[in-house]
């Protein structure tokens, strides 16, 4: 409630800011008629120029080609500087050096607050993003809004679902779990039937843990400007930690890191039976797990209360315009094209899971039958999940740091050194200290 109110307020401020800027622009246009008014995308695109885009999203390549074909005066330099953290390090280096900063950067939702509060990213509300209210699903749209502005346009989203290997469940005569209690039972049955098989792999992943707490209704992070609260003692966190600790205690989770070659192997041969993961997963399964073709299906995320339908976001990223960009109007024009314009369909065709309401609701999208998933209309489940994301979640303005120390704290629980509850308490302590050192006022 409180959070929603704050967000509404923030939106109001952003709009006011946009208005003020528009007014100034009008006032000054008499002095300098050549300068295009902000938001006048067509004339900016007509004038052209060169922008650099740092992104690892593979579908952007086709978008850039289409964009350059449509606006021949614009030259877009697309560079894959690394996935996630690698790119953030490069971006921070470039910003610190004040040289070589791209105009547009792909930033995951969890990392966005960090770059926004560091004033590395430009508020694109005044450039036209403020008018896009309602274009995106609520989860990603609230993720790109920080305090007083809009710091990116959602590129994809990762509403969570339960991907499962149907063969494993059929062979054992198991029902697909709809609650986490049933999930625990299924985990025991799968591992009992084959000691090499597990319901899932987990070696500790900050993104997964925060998403699970998110779904359970926990709100460990609350951010208001530089006032931050970190509290891993709420009910939602407790629910997740208890169930997951049981899974760990009984050795029901495969000690295999996600994205490793063993992981791909396990997904193919049935020794990793499910994935609770973001909606962007189908493309990865199709291209990386040939052996699993026809076996995988998608079901709604298991629930903490039978009959509920709460979900959370897992992963997903936005395209942001950097503060250092000399041509923010043009940079924004590209971002809007890619994430709210014609680029969206190109990316959906390339296998991306969109964050835009129009695409998520389109018949063509929802009714697409996936051969890999035995002809299942996978997007039905995933699009449904997108509408059920629990509201009010916030990431820390130093989440990149927090995630980097996850392994030293919570991660220890996965190797039996401590429990999740204690690990989370350590994580809270470590991030609290860091936040205070960085000039935030952090309370627990």
């Amino acid at each position, binding site marked *: 409630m409180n959070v929603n109110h704050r967000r509404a307020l923030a939106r109001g401020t952003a709009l006011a800011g946009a208005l003020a800027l528009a007014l100034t622009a009008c006032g000054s246009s008499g002095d300098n008629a050549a300068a295009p008014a902000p938001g006048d995308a067509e004339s900016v695109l007509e004038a052209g120029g060169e922008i650099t885009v*740092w992104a*690892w*999203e*593979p*579908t952007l390549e086709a978008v850039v080609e289409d964009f350059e074909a449509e606006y021949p005066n614009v030259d877009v*330099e697309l*560079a*894959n*500087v*690394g*996935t996630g953290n*690698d790119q953030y390090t*490069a971006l921070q*280096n*470039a910003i*610190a*050096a*004040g*040289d*070589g900063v*791209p105009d547009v950067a792909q930033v995951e939702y969890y990392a966005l607050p960090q770059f926004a509060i560091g004033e590395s990213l430009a508020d694109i509300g005044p450039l036209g993003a403020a008018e896009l209210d309602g274009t995106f699903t609520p989860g990603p749209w609230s993720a790109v809004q920080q305090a007083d502005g809009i710091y990116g346009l959602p590129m*994809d989203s*990762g509403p969570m679902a339960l991907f499962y290997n149907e063969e494993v469940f059929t062979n054992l005569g198991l029902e697909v779990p709809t609650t986490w209690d049933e999930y625990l039972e299924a985990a025991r049955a799968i591992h009992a039937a084959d000691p090499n098989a597990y319901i899932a792999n987990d070696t500790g992943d900050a993104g997964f843990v925060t998403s699970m707490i998110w779904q359970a209704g926990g709100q460990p992070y609350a951010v208001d400007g530089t006032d931050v609260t970190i509290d891993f003692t709420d009910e939602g966190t407790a629910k997740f930690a208890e169930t997951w600790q049981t899974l760990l205690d009984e050795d029901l989770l495969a000690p295999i890191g*996600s*994205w490793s*070659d063993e992981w*791909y*192997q396990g997904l*193919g*041969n049935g020794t990793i039976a499910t994935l609770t993961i*973001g909606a*962007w*997963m189908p*493309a*990865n399964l199709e*291209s*990386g797990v*040939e*052996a699993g073709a026809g076996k995988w299906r998608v079901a709604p995320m298991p629930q903490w209360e039978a009959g509920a339908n709460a979900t959370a976001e897992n*992963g*997903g990223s936005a395209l942001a315009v950097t503060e250092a960009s000399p041509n923010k109007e043009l940079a924004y024009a590209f971002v809007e094209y890619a994430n709210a314009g014609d680029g969206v369909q190109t990316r959906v065709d*390339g*296998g*991306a899971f969109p964050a835009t309401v129009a695409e998520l609701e389109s018949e063509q999208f929802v009714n697409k039958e996936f051969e890999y998933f035995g002809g299942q209309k996978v997007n039905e489940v995933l699009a449904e999940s997108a509408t059920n994301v629990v509201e009010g979640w916030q990431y820390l303005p130093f989440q990149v740091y927090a995630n980097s120390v996850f392994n030293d704290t919570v991660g220890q629980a996965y190797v039996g050194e401590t429990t999740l509850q204690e690990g989370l308490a350590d994580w809270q302590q470590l991030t609290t200290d860091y936040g205070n050192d960085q000039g935030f006022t952090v309370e627990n």
Partner: protein
Amino acid sequence: MTTTTASATTSAGRRGAGPLRTRSRRAHSVERPRRSMVLTVATGIVLIYSLVPLVWLVINSSKTQASLFGSFGLWFSGDFALWDNIVQTLTYDGGIFVRWLANTLLYVVAGAGGATALAIIGGYGLAKFTFPGKRAVFAIVIGAVAVPGTALAVPTFLMFSQMGLTNTPWAVIIPSLISPFGLYLMWTFAAEAIPTELLEAARMDGASEVRTFAQISLPLLAPGIVTVLLFTMVATWNNYFLPLIMLRDPDWYPLTLGLNAWNAQAATAGGEAIFNLVITGSLLTILPLIAAFLLLQRFWQSGLAAGGVKE
């Protein structure tokens, strides 16, 4: 058998046949060291330890992505897909691998070649000329050998970015030109390998310094040059951290960064896992280095040995 008898006879003849000498006891000398079971086994383990990764690489570059996951790692399985993999590696993403290979070659030729040239000139000068401040240079060079290049990468990055050189090939080539170890090696090598009398003779005959250097000293330095060249080549070829922080544009990546980028694709939402290409690419990447070692090996050995013993 024959040789054993022969050497036994020689040493017996030299020392006089003692009563304890029997056929079962072997004579040992520098040419014929004692055979040690423990040492043989230890060497064997080291040999296997260093060869297994190579064997693994060769075996697995012959597998398709699917059979990589479905088969035992240290033996062949499924279709022999090495040629397919090589073709795919060279053509994937518009042949970017070939571009990376060319970049690496550029960095090696310009960086390692330049570093070697500078080390030869510097080492020769330091070894054969006396000038004030030589001891200070010596101290700096020795100190610089002890500082790993990785530690200097970030300050170098900040400096280069102020000069606007980051994200250009220069950012990789210029730091590669500095090889304190190469300079030190050339210095000690030149001091040993070039008799000062020879230089004096050349000067007496009226050869200019440049001609003395080019025609008298350079040929004598050849083994040392090859050694330094190999060291700097390996260092530049395998360089990862420096290009990682200097380069942003994949078009300028060397192979090390490119392969890492391919590997990271598997961990990217919507990315295509291409483990088979990463493995085949790694195999292709080490081939030139292996070739260089085989071709330059004998120079290298003599280069390492020279300077080790005072004559």
